[in-house]
């Protein structure tokens, strides 16, 4: 049994006091503990941004890579060792901006990676430019006339791509967030968990309060396997923002379809230098 203490980090978070990343960090640790996963059994791959600093503030295998490239690293890591739980932690800029192409194709592959996007609807680390999820009209130093592009809807996008698991959480509702994290981890298939995460410093529009006034938990009767209903639900935003599992399906995962790793993870397979040498000698 691993406990919360096992997940203690040696590092002090460099986040702003009150940042929505703190409750997410706390919740992820709790979820892992409750699922009885030890730190060395999980690999967190992250990119660059405030969200992506997360693995440093807990204890786990960590590949903190480049801005936008979280999913390819996670994909490679998981293909090489599919006994490892691989979680990709990124920001909205990282995942939906710089890394948008990888998101599309990770979903298509249905690699069994868990993607947690800290969606603060802003570029935090670079001091407040619009992100793909920023709302139209929001004024920033770069978007001096307000954001002109339509706000990206990650849930609708994922459903259109038939993503295996699509959910939304809120950093201000950690109890539910924990359930969603656990569900995402336990689901077999690529799982997107978009987490509404207030940035108290740069996003003065989408604050804790703003979200609190709008988010609701999806009703238990809801059937997340109905793609059309899921698509409809994913379009809600203005006044009511659904949180919960919006869509899921049971597509087979990539790891199981590749003959070379069907039986044993790649990293556990030996290499017989002798055979290859013989083969070469006999050419």
């Amino acid at each position: 049994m691993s406990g919360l203490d096992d997940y203690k980090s040696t590092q002090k978070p460099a986040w702003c006091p009150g940042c929505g990343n703190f409750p997410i960090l706390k919740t992820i640790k709790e979820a892992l503990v409750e699922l009885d996963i030890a730190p060395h059994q999980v690999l967190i791959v992250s990119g660059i941004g405030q969200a992506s600093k997360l693995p440093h503030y807990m204890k786990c295998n960590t590949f903190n890579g480049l801005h936008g490239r979280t999913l390819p690293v996670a994909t490679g890591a998981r293909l090489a060792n599919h006994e490892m739980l691989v979680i990709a932690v990124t920001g909205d800029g990282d995942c939906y901006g710089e890394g948008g192409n990888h998101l599309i194709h990770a979903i298509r592959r249905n690699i069994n990676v868990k993607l947690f996007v800290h969606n603060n609807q802003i570029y935090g680390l670079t001091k407040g430019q619009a992100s793909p999820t920023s709302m139209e009209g929001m004024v920033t130093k770069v978007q001096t006339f307000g954001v002109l592009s339509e706000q990206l809807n990650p849930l609708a996008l994922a459903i259109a791509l038939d993503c295996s698991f699509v959910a939304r959480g809120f950093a201000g509702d950690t109890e539910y967030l924990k359930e969603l994290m656990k569900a995402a981890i336990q689901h077999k298939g690529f799982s997107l968990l978009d987490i509404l995460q207030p940035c108290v410093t740069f996003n003065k529009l989408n604050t804790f309060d703003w979200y609190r006034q709008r988010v609701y938990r999806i009703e238990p009767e809801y059937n997340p396997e109905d793609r059309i209903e899921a698509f409809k639900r994913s379009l809600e935003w203005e006044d009511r923002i659904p949180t919960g599992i919006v869509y899921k399906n049971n597509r087979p995962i990539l790891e199981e379809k590749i003959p070379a790793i069907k039986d044993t993870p790649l990293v556990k397979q030996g290499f017989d230098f002798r055979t290859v040498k013989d083969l070469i000698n006999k050419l």
Partner: protein
Amino acid sequence: MDYSIKIGGEAGQGLQTIGDVLAQVFSKAGYHVFSHQDYESRIRGGHNFYQIRVADSPVMSSRERIDVIVALDHASIKLHKNELTKQGILIYDSETLKENIDDPAFLDIPFKRLAIEEGGNPITANTVATGAVIGMLNMDLSILNDLIKETFKKKGDAVVEGNIKAAKAGYEYSKNKCLKCSFSLEQSSKKPKILINGIEAIVLGALASGCKFYSAYPMTPSTGIMNSLASKAEEFGIVVEQAEDEIAAINMALGASFSGVRAMTGTSGGGFALMVEGLSLAGMTETPIVIAEGQRPGPATGLPTRTEQGDLLFVIHTAHGEFPRVVFAPGTPQQALYLTNKAFDLAEKYQIPALIVFDQYLADSQWTFENFNSDKLVYKDYRLRGKNFKALKEYKRHAFTPTGVTPLAVPGDSEHVVVTDSDEHDEEGHIIEDAPRRIKMTDKRLFKKLQNLKKEISQPTLYGSNKPEIILTGWGSTYGVIKETVDELNRQGKNASMLHFSEIYPFPESGNYLQLLNNAGMTVCIENNATRQLAKLMRAETGFKFKQRINRFDGRPFTVDYILRGLNVRS
């Protein structure tokens, strides 16, 4: 005995099959073979050719004069007939081309008619042509027949039979009709040779190094590596993943490498451009990776199916920040095999990116070898795994060590976590901001490693006299053609040597080669590019300045004749 054969035609006419089969027949018969290809960036039409040299002593470049031309289209006649040697013959099918040419050097063979009549199918016309060439060379048909059986086995007896008949028809036609044919490739009693091109050699090198993961995005001339590894994926337990783009390709490979397997990616210049940020990531996180970079004429899309050595300074200097890397530029398929193996070894030993730079010319060119010595291959698993990892009391991914190299642990194999970061980090792998640790990390990652890494690099190959008056210098795929030029010069009574760089970065420590260059009267740097990249690198690294240079940048490979002209020497 030294013949050159050229098969010319449109894309999609199957000239590559004819060429491949002939090269195989010759090498199986124990001859020395060299072949190269020239093709356009299209799937049908245009004009392509495939050129084979077959001889009884080693050959490693193409000549400009041709003994047998197989012309599948009009362009082949127009473009190549003047390349015929005095005794040269061009064969064509006047019925198909609807053109009858009255030239004593031309032999009209009804490929298609014979294919229908004998092979039972017009599709066997190319087999007729192949048989005809074998006939012209006075070889016997047995090897070709064996090849046909092997190739078409899966398609059933009728197809095998048809092709064998077609081959025989062409064979007999040329034997009977080619009165001028004076070639003779009597069955040699020699042992069959290994016929291998650059791509196959790189793949063999990867297999021999325990490569387990290959992610890439298709791009000429590197696509063959992915195709070939994919065809062997099940047998050798390799995961081959086609990435959505080159950025994903390199990042996937890094993820796999971090997880504990040997990983590789491959691309061409334009795709490599997209990998530059990932290259720097490998440098910072000290994650081993092997990258095969197939140069092609640029800038941008350039001449996508042709050859150039235009990326040397690019691959050596690209990426932000400073970290060690290894760059190899094999000159032959044999070197490609051993250097790919060395790249995997050094990448893991020093936890750095290792690059194999090649080009379309090396990729597609086939060479023959007697055999490969597998004892020259190395395999050492440098990773910290299983119980060795478990036994440690503590683990820090980037701990300071005397050599700068920290054992590379496999995540999950023990309770210690493995942490790395693209930010500057501490020994554990966590982000830092302070100056003292930054300096120590740079010292570890860069200076300490570089010191030992430099010692791993072999001196350039010297071929020829130890006190040469003329030195022809080159790197990468020009090995064969420069070597043959040196032979030719020496035959003409000159005192020439070749200096060839294949382990090119870190640049070989100034040694004997510099002295030779300083003492030679004529030092020529020969490069398949416009801006004299090796010459520049040489000057930066050693201060030496070449007196002469020969550069070619039209997308075509050098020939001995071309270099001799550049030297103002008659061939």
